[in-house]
C-alpha cells in the first residue's frame, strides 16, 4: 500500500488484477475468487463501511443473512483495541460452547499441527509415512482442525487490522528487554521451544485449548493435572531462563 506509484499506474494494475480474477472466476465457474478479491478491500481500507459492504456482498453471494449480521456485530464490538478481561473471557466461553454445539467436538488446535506434520511427510516421503503407526490416527487430510487454524489466523488479522493494532515485528518487546534484540536468537529459541511444546502436547494428548480448557470445563482430572503442571513448569523455567532481570528491571 505504501509503495510510491502513480495513481494511473495503480488503477491500471488494479484493472488488470480484476480482469484476471474475473476470467479465473468464469473459467472455474465459481464466484469465490471475486469474493476473495473483494475481501482485499477490507485489508486495504479497514473502515466500518468496508466491513458493511463486505457483509452485504457475502449475504447476497451466499443467500444467507448471517454474514450481514456478523459484520454488524463486528462493526459494533471490534473497534476498541482490547476488551476488558471479564467480558472477553465470557465471549471466549461462548465460543467454546458454540464449538460443542456446532461441531460436536471441543476446540483443539494441536491436532491440526500434527496432521500438518503427517501431511508434509506424506508429500515428501510417502513410502516411509505409510509405515508409521501414529499417522493412522492422524491421517494426512485437510480437516476441521486445519480450517480452525486458518480461521484463527484470519480472525486475528481482521480484528487487529480493524482496530489498528496490526504491527509487523520479529522480536517481542519484553524479549528484547531481557534477551537482546537479535532476531536470529529469538527465532532459534522459538523453534527449540516449539519442538518441545509439540512433543509435550503429543505425550499429554492435547494443548491448552484441547486438553486444559476442554478438560477443566468438563470436570475431567486430565485438565486439572495438566493445568497445575503447566503452571509449575512455566514459572520454574521463567525464573531459570530469564535469570536475573525478572523482577528488578533497571529503569533508564
Amino acid at each position, binding site marked *: 500500500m505504501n509503495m510510491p506509484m502513480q495513481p494511473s499506474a495503480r488503477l491500471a494494475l488494479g484493472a488488470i488484477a480484476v480482469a484476471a480474477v474475473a476470467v479465473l472466476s468464469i473459467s472455474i465457474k465459481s464466484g469465490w475468487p471475486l469474493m476473495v478479491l473483494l475481501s482485499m478491500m477490507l485489508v486495504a481500507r479497514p473502515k466500518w463501511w468496508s466491513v458493511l459492504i463486505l457483509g452485504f456482498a457475502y449475504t447476497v453471494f451466499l443467500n444467507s443473512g448471517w454474514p450481514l449480521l456478523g459484520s454488524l456485530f463486528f462493526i459494533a464490538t471490534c473497534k476498541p483495541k482490547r476488551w476488558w478481561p*471479564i467480558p472477553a473471557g465470557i465471549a471466549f466461553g461462548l465460543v467454546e460452547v458454540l464449538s460443542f454445539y456446532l461441531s460436536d467436538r471441543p476446540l483443539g488446535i494441536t491436532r491440526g499441527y500434527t496432521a500438518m506434520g503427517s501431511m508434509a511427510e506424506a508429500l515428501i516421503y510417502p513410502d516411509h509415512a505409510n509405515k508409521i503407526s501414529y499417522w493412522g490416527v492422524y491421517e494426512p487430510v485437510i480437516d476441521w482442525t486445519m480450517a480452525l487454524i486458518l480461521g484463527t489466523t484470519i480472525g*486475528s488479522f481482521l480484528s487487529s487490522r480493524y482496530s489498528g493494532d496490526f504491527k509487523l515485528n520479529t522480536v517481542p518487546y519484553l524479549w528484547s528487554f531481557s534477551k537482546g534484540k537479535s532476531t536470529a536468537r529469538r527465532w532459534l529459541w*522459538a523453534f527449540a521451544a516449539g519442538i518441545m511444546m509439540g512433543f509435550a502436547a503429543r505425550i499429554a494428548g492435547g494443548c491448552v485449548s484441547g486438553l486444559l480448557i476442554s478438560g477443566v470445563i468438563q*470436570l475431567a482430572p486430565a485438565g486439572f493435572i495438566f493445568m497445575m503442571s503447566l503452571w509449575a*513448569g512455566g514459572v520454574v*523455567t521463567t525464573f531459570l531462563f530469564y535469570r536475573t532481570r525478572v523482577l528488578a528491571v533497571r529503569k533508564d
Partner: protein
Amino acid sequence: MIELITYKELLGRLVQTFDSGTIEAVKGPTSLYGGLILGLLFGIVLQKSRLCKYDIVSSLFRLQDFTVFRVGTPVLMASVVLIFIFKDAGIFELHVPKTVIIPQIIGGLLFGAGIAIMGYCPGTAAGALGEGSLDAIPSILGMISGAVLYAEFFHDSWENTFLKWGEIGGKTFFEILRINHWYLIVLFLLMLTMFLIATTMFDLVIVFLRKTFNLFMDMTDALEEKIPPATKPYAVSTIETVKKFKQNLRDLFK
C-alpha cells in the same frame, strides 16, 4: 410493476434468510466451514483479550501481570455452567479427554517450559501470526516438527509402557466420586470466584506498591496502550463521521 409488501411479509422474508438449513450445513465434526467460522470467532476473541501477545503471556509467568488469569477464569466459569446445562437438556454430549497421570504431568511441565520460552501456546501462535508477530512462524514450524519427532522415534516404544502409567481413562470427577455434578460445579464456581478476586486484588496491590514505593519497576506500564484521553477515535459526532466517509470515498476512487 413494483409490488408493495407489508412489513410482516418483509420480516418473514428476512427471517427466512436465517433458516436453520444454513446452520445444519456447517454442523458436524468434519465440516470445514464450521471450523472456519469457529476459528474466526476464536481469533477475534483471542486478539481482543490480548492473549496472543508474547508480553502478556510472559509477564504472567514473570508474576507481573495477571491478565491471562483474569480472562481465563470467566472462560471456565461461563462454559462450565453452560456446558452442563446443555448436557442435562440433552442438546449435546460431553467429549471427555483421557486421563493418564504420569505422561500428563511430564507433558505439562515440558509444555509450560515451552510456553515460558516461546510465549505462545498453539492456538495463540496462529493468532499472533495474524496479528503481525512474525516469530510465530518458527514456533509453528517447531510444533509441527516436534509432533513428527514424536511420531517417528518415540510413539511405538512408548505406546504400551510410558503412556499407560497411571491411566484412568475418559472419566470425569463426578463419575469417579459418584455424586451429582452440580455439587462439584458450585464448589468449582466458588473457588474460581475467590481466585478471580484474589488475582484482581494482587494486581491492584502491585499497582499500589509501584505507584507509592516505586517497587516492581515499570514492566507492565509499558505494556498498557497509550490511549489518548477524552478524544477517542470511535466516539465522534455524526457530522465528522459523514465527513470521514466522504473523504474515504474520495480516497477509494482517486
